[in-house]
């Protein structure tokens, strides 16, 4: 057994990514146990605070995806309770989880990001959806990505190829949240670049290339083995690989992230463009961070054990 003591992985939550989070949490727990860590999972429900208070773990690994796990809420609670945790502090999570805010920060740090507009549902209601959508199409052209401003796993996200499909995509998007990000579609190589920081500064992991076999990288393509082909390392030129790694580290630093993150990029015309960043990356069988660690010859359990040890030593 490691001398880390008892650690807790938070998994579940009430966002639509609950199922994914439960799978991430179980896989992480098993990997940590294999690495000799006394690890258990816990849900973020009414039993959590009494449990953390009665028997505080050495550290917590938040593996809750979507709201509450990635928007800084659970990190605020852990800070209030004085429980050390892996990952970014609450303010950084808030900005990272909000795609438009993260894009703005990334852009300010010198990264390229696809053009986009962010609009709440009230704007469409007050100004007339038709006029607003017409202007968006005229400006960015088609196809367009419509995504909830906050959320993950491509839930509520649609790639729109025809203007008449745009209203339907907006309705689907607003079922997941009140603000939409409408982004130009940049064609290129889709990659995810993990970043870990074990005390020597943020280090990029090998880029994972994502190639859905049919259609886009939607929920089914993400979580059905066999529907997406992954290449690790991504099939990029050395210059592109270097630029992608630098972009992921730059995003990690600019957003004030800590310990671990995953940046999603699209490489077009040799240049990586920032799409979004995740502070609680997926850890399922089809998730890219564990693939990247594996390709780097790093064990998931060992790396996460070290991140937990680092968090425990750091305190809150």
């Amino acid at each position, binding site marked *: 057994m490691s001398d880390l003591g008892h650690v807790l992985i938070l998994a579940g939550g009430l966002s*639509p990514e609950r199922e*994914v989070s439960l799978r991430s949490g179980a896989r992480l727990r098993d990997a940590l146990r294999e690495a000799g860590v006394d690890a258990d999972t816990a849900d973020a429900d009414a039993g959590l605070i009494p449990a953390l208070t009665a028997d505080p773990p050495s550290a917590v690994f938040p593996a809750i995806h979507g709201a509450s796990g990635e928007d800084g809420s659970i990190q605020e609670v852990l800070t209030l309770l004085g429980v050390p945790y892996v990952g970014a502090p609450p303010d950084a999570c808030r900005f990272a989880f909000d795609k438009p805010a993260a894009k703005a920060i990334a852009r300010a740090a010198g990264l390229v990001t696809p053009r986009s507009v962010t609009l709440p549902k009230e704007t469409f209601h007050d100004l007339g959806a038709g006029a607003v959508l017409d202007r968006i199409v005229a400006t960015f052209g088609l196809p367009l990505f419509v995504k909830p401003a906050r959320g993950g796993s491509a839930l509520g996200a649609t790639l729109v190829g025809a203007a008449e499909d745009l209203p339907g995509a907006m*309705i689907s998007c607003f079922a*997941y949240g009140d603000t939409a990000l409408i982004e130009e579609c940049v064609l290129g190589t889709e990659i995810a670049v993990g970043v870990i920081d074990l005390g020597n500064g943020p280090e*990029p992991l*090998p880029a994972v290339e994502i190639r859905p076999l049919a259609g886009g990288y939607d*929920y*089914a393509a993400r979580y059905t083995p066999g529907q997406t082909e992954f290449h690790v390392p991504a099939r990029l030129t050395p210059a592109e690989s270097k630029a992608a*790694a630098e972009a992921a580290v730059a995003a990690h630093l600019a957003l004030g992230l800590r310990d671990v993150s995953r940046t999603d990029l699209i490489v077009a015309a040799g240049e990586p463009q920032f799409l979004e960043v995740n502070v609680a990356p997926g850890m399922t069988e089809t998730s890219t961070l564990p693939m990247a660690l594996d390709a780097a010859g790093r064990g998931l359990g060992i790396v996460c054990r070290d991140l937990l040890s680092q968090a425990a030593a750091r305190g809150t």
Partner: protein
Amino acid sequence: MPIEPARAGRDDDKPRTSRPERHAALSHGSLVDAHVGRYSARAKDMAASEIRALFAVAARPEIVSLAGGMPYVTALPLDAVGDMAGQLVAQRGAAALQYGSAQGDPALREGICEVMALEGIRAHPDEVVVTVGSQQALDLITRIFVDPGDVVLAEAPSYVGALGTFASYQAQVVHVPMDDDGLVPDALGESLARLQAQSRRVKFLYTVPSFHNPAGVTLSEPRRAEVLGICQRAGVLVIEDNPYGLLGFDGEPLRALRADDAHGVVYLGSFSKTIAAGLRVGWALAPAGIRDKLVLAAEASVLCSSSLTQLMVGEYLASQPWREQIKVFRELYRERRDAMLDTLGAVMPQGCRWTRPGGGFYVWLQLPPGLNSKSMLPRAISSRVAYVPGTGFYADGGGTEHLRLSYCFPEPGRIREGICRLAEVIGAETEIRATFGPSRAAAGGAGPADLTGPAGGPPAS
């Protein structure tokens, strides 16, 4: 300092499970699942889905789930059932923990005939095949009758579990319209004539005549005779799936279709709703030829159903007041049905219509025109209420404007709370729809039931 990918050799002589080999495989593209090219055609649509992801949230206690059809098993006298199970193992463990016959325990089959007698069925235990829930009976029936491309007729909407089974055998489902009196006989006749003209092979009609899942409606008595007559004339077998038949809230149980046609109807029954779903005991009642094939198919599928749970059900029927317990369930579900219908009437927005079930578990609700129950579900989950979108109950993409509400599991207070939340969700979705498209919201309340699915009920106030 970037972390480099591990440099791996690609010597094919190395063990395939070694770490370097896995790296090499990934660098040349990995589908994660090494068996992708081996799956059958019928497995190609088995994929992760957003809807399943949302249902994972719906199972949490924070959500009022009007989605699942879970019987309220805690209304059973659990202590008595536990004592009975303990004695069964202690006294008859050698049989209860052993393999049994593929047709099922003979004493249980006698008990099943007693249960079916309540719906007017006169049957011999030899005609009964015990199955792992009636779902397995459905699977076996489809297995022995359906070749890929054969037509199965089913109500519109139809039970989602049946549609899944039909899809797995690559059947072509043709839906037949219903209204508030159940399957529409004229529409059934027209469908059969059309299919015959097209030289398409219709293998059977699948129907849930009493307290339909998901529609909540019941095939009226006059129509029962009509449906049987049409199928007899066309030479089409009827599969009568009747899990809710004893859970009517008014009067005596309706006479089953099988009671009036022993040769043209296969009856599927279940103890999941009248005793406990976790026992997984159901049955098929079939004419001798079909029975023989079902027994062989069951043997190939599971060798035999669980002896333990079969003997438990047999003992329960022999020693427990099961008829009284069904009355307890009926009263409990009636109270919950009333809570749902009363609240629907009080809070649902203009343009919604719904059925008024006389038994069973479900209300079928039609949204105001233009709303889509599937795309509305994330909003509902965020508002802490869950339902099943109507599309799951159609094999042809229908059901977008419908949803199924189940009142069997939540207590009445939670049902009221859930319906109030749902009303707000529908209101918000209507606003969004109005923003992004021409509002096709109905100006009035409930209209007459249409033939795209039952949707009668009181005007929404």
